[in-house]
């Protein structure tokens, strides 16, 4: 079971939420710690806070600590929020679609159908899918493709996903063939290198 969330301590945690959010977004977008230090130390809102608390300027270590604590918590919460939002939107879309097709949502059968759909959505865990996709991207794509094929809107997306899977498989097979040739010939010719690059670009 998860522990209860703890209040973050430290220099960055003492900054206003708007600045912390800005900082977290910059971290998410790949800013370096030195860039973040420069951003905070040149921010006119931050200077009076540092002066009031008697703290010196931000250094890379402060930001590194924040990345491992406050930022990690923020990222996890944000991910959870997005996952819940996604499911809520899917529920609303399903209800809207059924109503537009003339189904009485207060009817007992419709209510049961919606309960089943809600349970299916509850059991769908995007975080687990992301983890699985790291190890087996192809299997995750196929699973999504099967899921999408279940809805009318999803059929078009399923076809797109299926195409991507096929292209991925073909490109992977090509790249594998090229590597085999390279190994056999004992080196990488200019032509083989170009073909591998083309195959990789397809992925």
């Amino acid at each position: 079971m998860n522990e209860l969330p703890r209040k973050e301590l430290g220099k960055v945690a003492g900054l206003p939420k708007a600045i912390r959010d800005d900082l977290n977004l910059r971290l998410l977008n790949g800013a370096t710690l030195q860039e973040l230090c420069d951003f905070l130390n040149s921010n006119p809102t931050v200077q009076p806070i540092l002066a009031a608390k008697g703290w010196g300027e931000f250094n890379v270590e402060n930001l590194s600590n924040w990345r491992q604590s406050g930022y990690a918590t923020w990222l996890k919460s944000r991910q959870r929020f997005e996952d819940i939002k996604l499911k809520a939107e899917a529920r609303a879309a399903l209800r809207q679609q059924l109503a537009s097709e003339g189904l009485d949502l207060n009817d007992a059968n419709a209510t049961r159908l919606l309960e089943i759909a809600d349970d299916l959505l509850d059991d769908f865990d995007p975080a687990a899918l992301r983890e699985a996709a790291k190890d087996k991207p192809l299997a995750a794509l196929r699973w999504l493709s099967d899921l999408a094929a279940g809805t009318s809107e999803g059929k078009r997306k399923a076809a797109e996903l299926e195409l991507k899977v096929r292209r991925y498989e073909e490109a992977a097979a090509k790249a594998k063939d090229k590597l085999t040739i390279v190994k056999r010939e004992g080196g990488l010719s200019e032509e083989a290198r170009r073909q591998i690059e083309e195959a990789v670009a397809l992925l």
Partner: protein
Amino acid sequence: MNRSSAIRDEVLMQLVAAFPAQVPVERLHKTARRSGFDFAELELRKEAHYLAGLNPPLVAVSHDAATNQERFAATSAGVAHFENQ
């Protein structure tokens, strides 16, 4: 953060994510459990009512007449509170 505050944060976060949908406590419970929190349904319901009793209310409570089920939804004040937390 004490347990009650953590449960209030969890309830508000889930309701804001689902805004403007009305969510039964069973779903709040299931989602919290899936994320590894051991909050009981009763605790979630109690804290949702606490949030509904604030001035201004952060949560609105309604009853589904067909199923006699209690449902909760974030109010606009709840959304604003969550965004400024």
